[in-house]
């Protein structure tokens, strides 16, 4: 893949950071946006803007059609059975809160168990914590092994007759471990336990096929998929959306309203209260087109190449310790450097235009377990090249020079 060509499609790379060329290695946090996405939003506001679905005039018709086209594109992208299974949310966090809140409210009772893993992002723990508090439920944490993975056997061990949901990440945003989702779904479906997958690090980087994965819920953040901020997606099997109660209430999600009672339409309408992120959803259609133009297989191949090159190169530096050694790894390299706090690393790298993340990456449980307060993380996107890795590697050497000389 010609990364020069790809990079040229992202306006951000035309800028300098601290006088240096930008080496963006923070895509797991949020990805940059191609010009087509940025321009689509501008064009929409400049030529087509109107609120969606509520007015009869021509602008509203256009806006509604453009908006709903994104739902169709997304249905195809994740291979959902029907467009009604795609619900627009604010971000993946809201998607998971929606499920935890509605499913938890209806199906989780005192003493019931919620099974998550030590790898989970706070987005896939805090919402369940609320249900734990509200319902007196129990959260069980499947242990992460020394490779930074969660074994299917570990999950099997923890499933009981009280398990009401299994909520796991698709790919760890710290160790990069790709979870055995299909196996988990197989296991769970024997006991009729629904499975929620936090797909934040999955959807932008690997092929995501709902019919193949078989999970009940899949949460996505569009801003990590080269899309606008402010949009997330919840994929949910229709059977769930049909029986779960509504989440937020307001305009657009009602059927009949009177003073004593309110009835609701079907999904996805029931879950889309108020004015949605019209322009952002329309803009996101260009992100999906962009990914599909490059081809998810090409993306996977390219990122794997850069990942392996990066792991190799970084490992050579003796003072660097890479976190986790999963058999299947997504496009993430978290690491520590002996004697240097990750924040200091990030600051020094930034001087060379290298943007990485330092912190617990919203995974305090995992960091506690590893005995770390924080780590440094380089994460890849479609636009990264081997040259980026070389610059990263040199910047890491500089850290050592400043601190360990």
């Amino acid at each position, binding site marked *: 893949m010609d990364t020069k060509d790809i990079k040229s499609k992202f306006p951000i790379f035309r800028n300098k950071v601290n006088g240096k060329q930008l080496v963006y290695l923070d895509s797991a946090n949020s990805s940059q946006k191609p010009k087509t996405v940025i321009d689509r939003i501008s064009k929409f506001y400049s030529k087509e803007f109107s609120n969606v679905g509520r007015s*009869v005039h021509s602008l*509203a*018709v256009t806006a509604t*059609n453009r908006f709903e086209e994104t739902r169709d594109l997304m249905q195809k992208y994740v291979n959902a059975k029907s467009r*009604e299974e795609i619900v627009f949310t604010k971000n993946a966090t809201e998607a998971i809160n929606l499920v935890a809140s509605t499913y938890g409210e209806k199906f989780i009772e005192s003493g019931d168990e919620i099974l998550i893993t030590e790898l989970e992002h706070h987005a896939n723990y805090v919402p369940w914590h609320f249900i734990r508090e509200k319902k007196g439920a129990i959260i069980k944490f499947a242990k992460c092994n020394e490779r930074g993975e969660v074994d299917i056997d570990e999950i099997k061990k923890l499933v009981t007759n009280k398990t009401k949901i299994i909520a796991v990440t698709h790919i760890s945003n710290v160790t990069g471990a790709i979870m055995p989702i299909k196996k988990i779904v197989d296991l769970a479906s024997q006991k009729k336990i629904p499975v929620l997958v936090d797909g934040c690090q999955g959807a932008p980087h690997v092929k995501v096929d709902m019919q193949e994965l078989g999970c009940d819920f899949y949460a996505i953040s569009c801003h990590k998929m080269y899309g606008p901020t402010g949009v997330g997606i919840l994929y949910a099997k229709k059977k769930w959306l049909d029986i779960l109660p509504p989440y937020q209430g307001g305009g657009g999600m009602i*059927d*009949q309203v009177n003073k004593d009672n309110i009835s609701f*339409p*079907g999904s996805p*309408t029931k879950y889309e209260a108020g004015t949605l992120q019209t322009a952002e959803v329309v803009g996101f259609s260009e992100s999906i087109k962009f990914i599909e133009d490059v081809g998810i297989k090409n993306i996977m191949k390219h990122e794997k190449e850069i990942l392996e090159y990066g792991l190799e190169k970084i490992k050579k530096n003796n003072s660097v310790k890479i976190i986790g050694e999963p058999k299947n790894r997504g496009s993430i390299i978290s690491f520590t450097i002996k004697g240097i706090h990750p924040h200091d690393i990030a600051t020094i790298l930034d001087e060379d235009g290298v943007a990485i993340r330092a912190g617990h990456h919203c995974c305090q449980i995992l960091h506690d377990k590893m005995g770390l307060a924080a780590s440094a993380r380089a994460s890849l996107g479609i636009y990264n090249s081997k040259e980026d890795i070389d610059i990263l590697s040199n910047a890491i050497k500089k850290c050592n020079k400043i601190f360990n000389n």
Partner: protein
Amino acid sequence: MDIKELYQEIILDHGKNPRNKNICKDFNKDAKGHNPLCGDKVHIYLKLDNEKKLANISFEGEGCAISMASASIMTEIIKGKEFNVAKKIQEDFLNMIKKGSKLSMNSLSDTENTTMMSLSGVKRFPMRVKCATLAWHTFLEAVKGSKKIVNTEN
């Protein structure tokens, strides 16, 4: 696109003087339809006899000229027909409105044809398609005997 294409004389006439707008006494099936966005409502009553013929059909409801005219035209055209024929007409109608196809039925009289065709202008007004199709969807639900309210949102 001239607005007169949408609001043809036939439609305005049916809108103002809807045919079969009542609760027919002999109905044995009925269903309700609702378009929550605009508030159009329709309630279809029909008598399906033992030979699966639509012995009678009528409607009640309120809504825009398009939805009322469409319900009126529908009842006028399918009343007295076999259910199978009526279903064909319904499919034909939906294809015309949604895809702009020509009517394929050749068992309709010229007047029936002209009357149905008067609604063809709707296809160029996407926001109004739901108004035109509400009664027709609801008719099918009534025959099915389904209890759920037809909701054009879904």
